[in-house]
């Protein structure tokens, strides 16, 4: 026990020495002597160790039995590091840099410097050299920034939390190291990885980063968070695309490595092939963890030194590996030795010939193309398989969506908000209508943008500010054909910013405000909203929201479905359900809820019971009431007429809607019935189409013609109902037109036809 404690103490002291050295700009003679003396003691101590354990100079434990020869080499190396190598470095720095270690930073092309680096950087220079090559030494206020980041990030709860995942891994990162059980040390790594995962949402936390951070922290730890920036530099610049979710960079490098091996050691590779070894299984870990798990860290650090100083160039790295091999890694790392033994047999010259910089670049390019395509195809197949299950889109539809997505996303990875906006506007014409109508009102258009942004964020499951294909199609599917639960879940996610598990009062308030953003919030409504909010719990869970939404379908309808919040028709069923609720539930509460869903209710309606007929009456009455309550009721007829005229002249489909106006009653009745049935079975309320032409006219007339819109709404619905066949025929001709017009079409009617097609594809509920 006692000896163990001593060990720990020693290593901590030793690390401190390294830290102290690194902080000084000038390395002086005495310091060098003192630090090497300290390490010398350490080695001495190791030899005294009676246990079966050997402790190397960085604090890694080795079983003496299992790694006998390795230990000898480690000792040898440690001594060389402290004596010969250190002296060489010391003289080099004195002569070339006038004792200023900073000046080493630009010497990566200097032959004699590279020769020095080949053998590794002595421990007491390492930190300084790393920092300058990883571009972390020059910035002064790192400390502030990193810790500010850390503090900030801890409060952001919406972002996926990798903390537990990281914590689990830290218990099994270098379990043979002394500090692996040290809670403060572990916490430092955890913080670094945590901040990194949030700063790089496309990477998040990737296993193997834990090993890299561990060693970085071991070497660079200075309480200033610099190791965090080193990690950033490594992941961004030295190993780009290594830790992303496809690991493209790492996969490419495996292939390049494989090719190089085939070129250089054909016998070896043939042998591997014969016995069925897939070399990538071994090498992926070498590359991802930068050899830190496969070699004793003392060796791996030499590779790191070279990698950082020379940059990412496989030729140089392999040269270094040869040096490490030269130190004979011994039998416990059998495969590595085995590989390197073969290296020796082939003349080193040959490596120089085969591994020109150009060759490696060519290979990289080649495999970049192959691997990227492979990875992309795999992902695509998986996505489509998944989406076929999750959505009811057909394979063809998915493929055409994918094509469009690829065009919009440039590199096929994801689309930003602007493209998302474009797609939504194209697929859901009702939203487009909203946008057109809201253009003149700053408040409304702001609200619409806010809502779209919220939805974008909710769909963006991995929080990388981009929607990938899967996320987009899932979102579109939920919007157009999702179940009640799915849609509500999306709304919940859109607004639950503070926590993923509940909505706060202000969040609900903003939800309600957005839900009714097209209705003018008069003072009366405002106070009723306030009243409603007051009686809410501090936190509303999803279940709570669901209950709320069941009582008040406006919540659902206004957001996720491509229905028009304008349309009072939607409010009918909502009212009827709240009316029903009135009987059963607390009157006060209900009043305030229903006040949110519609302006006025006729008291007579409240007498209606739950039979279908009554419901329909209820609906009709409500609509009527709404009409009366709407300011623009007067515009009603004239709007209606003008829109119909417009329709007749533009497309055949809209002419069908105008004919339907002559026979309104029966179809209206049946649609309402359907409405209700849908509602009862928990299905989404039927979405209504607002005819584009109508909107055009509406726009030209005024922004507030709710009543007119409502009527045309009904008409459209009826027309869809009555003229199903007609529509289907039209669809065919529309599709033809679409083919010709492609995406560049700016003509209004063409756009309309296009959107109609999309609606038909996306939204089976439209044609009722």
């Amino acid at each position, binding site marked *: 026990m006692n000896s163990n404690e001593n060990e720990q103490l020693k290593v901590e002291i030793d690390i401190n020495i390294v830290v102290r050295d690194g902080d000084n700009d000038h390395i002086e003679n005495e310091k060098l002597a003192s630090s090497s003396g300290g390490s010398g003691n350490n080695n001495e101590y190791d030899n005294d160790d009676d246990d079966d354990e050997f402790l190397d100079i960085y604090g890694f434990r080795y079983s003496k039995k299992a790694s006998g020869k390795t230990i000898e080499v480690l000792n040898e190396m440690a001594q060389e590091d402290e004596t010969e190598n250190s002296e060489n470095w010391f003289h080099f720095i004195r002569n070339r840099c006038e004792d200023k270690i900073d000046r080493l930073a630009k010497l990566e092309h200097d032959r004699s410097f590279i020769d020095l680096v080949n053998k590794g950087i002595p421990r007491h220079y390492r930190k300084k050299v790393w920092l300058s090559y990883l571009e972390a030494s020059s910035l002064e206020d790192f400390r502030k920034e990193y810790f500010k980041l850390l503090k900030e990030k801890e409060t952001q709860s919406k972002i996926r939390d990798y903390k*537990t*995942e990281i914590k*689990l*891994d830290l218990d*099994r*990162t*270098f*379990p*043979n190291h002394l500090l692996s059980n040290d809670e403060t040390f572990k916490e430092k790594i955890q913080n670094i990885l945590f901040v990194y995962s949030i700063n790089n949402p496309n*990477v*998040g936390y*990737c*296993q*193997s980063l*834990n*090993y890299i951070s561990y060693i970085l922290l071991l070497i660079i730890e200075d309480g200033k968070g610099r190791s965090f920036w080193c990690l950033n530099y490594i992941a961004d610049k030295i190993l780009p695309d290594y*830790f*992303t*979710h*496809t*690991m493209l960079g*790492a*996969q490419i490098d495996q292939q390049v490595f494989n090719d190089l091996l085939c070129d250089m050691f054909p016998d070896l590779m043939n*042998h591997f092939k014969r*016995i*069925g*070894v*897939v070399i*990538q*299984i*071994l090498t*992926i*870990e070498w590359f*991802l*963890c930068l050899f830190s*798990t*496969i070699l004793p860290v003392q060796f791996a650090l030499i590779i790191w030194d070279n990698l950082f100083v020379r940059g990412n160039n496989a030729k140089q790295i392999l040269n270094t590996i040869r040096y490490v091999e030269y130190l004979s890694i011994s039998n*416990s*790392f*059998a*495969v590595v030795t*085995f590989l390197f033994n073969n290296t020796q047999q082939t003349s080193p010259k040959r490596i120089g010939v085969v591994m020109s910089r150009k060759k490696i670049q060519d290979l990289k390019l080649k495999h970049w193309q192959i691997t990227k395509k492979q*990875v992309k195809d*795999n*992902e695509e197949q*998986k996505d489509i*398989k*998944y989406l076929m299950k999750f959505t009811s889109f057909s394979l063809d539809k998915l493929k055409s969506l994918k094509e469009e997505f690829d065009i919009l996303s440039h590199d096929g990875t994801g689309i930003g908000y602007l493209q998302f906006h474009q797609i939504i506007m194209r697929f859901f014409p009702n939203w487009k209508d909203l946008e057109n109508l809201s253009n003149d009102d700053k408040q409304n258009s702001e609200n619409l943008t806010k809502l779209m942004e919220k939805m974008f964020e909710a769909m963006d499951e991995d929080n990388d500010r981009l929607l990938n294909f899967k996320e987009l199609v899932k979102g579109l599917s939920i919007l157009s054909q999702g179940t009640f639960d799915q849609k509500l879940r999306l709304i919940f996610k859109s607004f639950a910013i503070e926590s993923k598990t509940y909505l706060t009062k202000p969040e609900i308030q903003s939800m309600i405000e957005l839900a009714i953003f097209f209705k003018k919030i008069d003072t009366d409504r405002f106070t009723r909203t306030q009243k409603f909010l007051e009686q809410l719990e501090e936190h509303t869970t999803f279940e709570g929201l669901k209950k709320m939404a069941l009582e008040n379908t406006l919540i659902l309808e206004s957001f996720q479905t491509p229905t028009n919040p304008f349309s009072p028709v939607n409010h009918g069923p909502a009212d009827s359900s709240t009316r029903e609720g009135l009987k059963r539930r607390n009157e006060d509460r209900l009043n305030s809820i229903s006040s949110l869903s519609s302006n006025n209710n006729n008291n007579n309606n409240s007498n209606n019971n739950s039979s279908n007929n009554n419901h329909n009456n209820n609906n009709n009455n409500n609509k009527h009431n709404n009409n009366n309550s709407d300011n623009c009721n007067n515009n009603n007829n004239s709007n209606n007429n003008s829109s119909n005229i417009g329709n007749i002249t533009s497309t055949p489909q809209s002419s069908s809607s105008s004919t339907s106006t002559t026979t309104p009653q029966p179809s209206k009745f049946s649609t309402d019935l359907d409405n209700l049935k849908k509602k009862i079975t928990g299905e989404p309320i039927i979405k209504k189409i607002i005819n584009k032409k109508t909107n055009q006219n509406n726009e030209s007339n005024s922004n507030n013609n709710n009543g007119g819109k409502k009527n045309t709404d009904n008409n459209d619905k009826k027309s869809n109902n009555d003229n199903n066949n007609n529509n289907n025929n039209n669809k065919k001709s529309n599709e033809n037109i679409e083919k010709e017009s492609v995406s560049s079409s700016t003509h209004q009617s063409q756009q309309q036809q296009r959107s109609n097609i999309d609606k038909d594809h996306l939204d089976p509920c439209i044609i009722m």
Partner: protein
Amino acid sequence: MEEFHFKCIVTGPPCVGKSSLLLQFCEKEFSAELDTTVGVEFQSKTMELDSTYKIKLEIWDTAGQESFRSITNNYYRGAHIALLVYDITNRQSFQYLGSWLEEISQMSGENIVTLLIGNKSDHNDRRVVKVEEGERFARENNILFIETSAKDNTNVEKAFEDATRQVVKLIKEGKMVVVNKKPQTVSLNQKEDPKQQQQQKKSGCC
């Protein structure tokens, strides 16, 4: 004795004890200090089943973390057995098993024999996933189920036996075809080659 050659993948969320199970099964060892698996690791073991069959198991131990899926998925192909492991003391590891199952069926054939393993049964005091829950999930998805402890070697052998027995049964019924052409395997017969044994040693050490 009839000989078979099966490919088996071990998969499941991170930190549920996949590597420990393998270590226990292949080396009869347990270590609390195992490193995280980066990428894929490989083991092979020959076992006897009911003293009538000799079965060579080629076991691929995959990294549990999401980022590794695009790499580990390559190794699912042609597998006969999938061991899907969760941790009975960790609710989260049980929660998303559905997506893992989907992954398995997507990346391998439909015929794969899947065995759900609730590991760490020695920690009964910290148990959060009930035996019945595991059983129910397995029943609903028509897969096998067992609880094991890699630490005190409970049911580890049995898990592998159960899975192989099921595969043998399917083969006997003609529902599964095994191509023993060893496409990606280390042949155990090539004794003249010492390097290849080193190879196996290597995969054993981490």
